[in-house]
């Protein structure tokens, strides 16, 4: 229950800030490649660097110790890279990362609402179709 309330509040803060700043996690790289604009890219870099600093700080501040990171096997890494490539490629076609699409949908962009419908439907699709299919192929 703590997690649900905390994520609701955190999501609310983040959604507000993201709407005000037009933050997008793939748009930074896209804008840099297209027009050498660094506004969104600096947001992406700030996120990565801050998180990199904040993880050790949280551990110092008394967060429960992280579970040991299990060594990823080659298959996991390949799947992660392929999935990441797909996320990046299709997000550019869809005009924004998933968080940006949530923000756009909340601003009234109807194609982003359609995106969200596909997004949540895709979760069911994954567990009904994609994951069993992948298991069967990779077994």
């Amino acid at each position, binding site marked *: 229950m703590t*997690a*649900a309330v*905390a*994520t609701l*509040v*955190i*999501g609310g803060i*983040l*959604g*507000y*800030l993201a*709407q*005000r*700043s037009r933050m997008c*996690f*793939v748009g930074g*790289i*896209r*804008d840099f490649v*297209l027009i050498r*604009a660094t506004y969104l890219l600096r*947001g992406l870099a700030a*996120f*990565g660097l801050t*998180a990199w600093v*904040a993880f050790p700080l*949280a551990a110092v501040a008394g967060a*429960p110790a*992280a579970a040991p990171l299990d060594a990823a096997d080659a298959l*996991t*890494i390949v799947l*992660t*890279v392929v*999935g990441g*490539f*797909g*996320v*990046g*490629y299709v*997000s*550019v*076609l*869809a*005009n924004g990362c*998933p968080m940006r699409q*949530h*923000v756009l949908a*909340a*601003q009234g*962009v*109807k*194609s*982003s609402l359609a995106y969200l419908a*596909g*997004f*949540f*439907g*895709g*979760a069911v699709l994954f567990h009904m179709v994609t994951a069993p299919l*992948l298991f069967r192929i990779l077994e």
Partner: protein
Amino acid sequence: MGAAQCKGAGRRRSASRPLRKDSRNCVIQMADTTTVEPVTIGRPLRVTAMHTGVAAAVLAVAAGAFFEVRPPEAYGLCMACHGRDLVNWTLNAGLGTHLAVAPASLVFPVLTTIGVFGGALLAAVLRREFRWWMPERPVPSFAYGAIVMNCALIAGGCSIRLLLRSAAGETAGLMGFAGMVAGVVAGTYWLRWSASR
């Protein structure tokens, strides 16, 4: 066409608003795959992307460290995984199915997606930026959403969580983030190529 104007706008630096202008006022419309974003002209932004990035990172780490959004590790913020948890948990509770959810969402699902939507709606309404934009092509958008969700669940995180996992020091996360950057660059070049054709 759009890109050329943007290029000019990006290089022309006025004294008042040097850098923000191009990412705010410039609408990138290439091919017919992108959507025109609602853009407000005038009033300068008070919240920059860098502010949002720092706040998001602090909140994401704090969620994982102090608010029980774990396991798995580095799970504090992810639109895809948290959306999956919400959908699957609701279906499990309502229809008695047994779809997978993360351990953090077993008792009650994480609500990040609803929070982001609500926060953005509040901001848009308060600043009078809310208006209905007609869908140009809703079916491709629907398909993009489904594909992104499936790819993100294969990779174990959306663009946000891939970077969060990299920052937490996970090798697979770093490789996934590199793959995502490659995908973005490839997609951007493909868009530019198809627009110039």
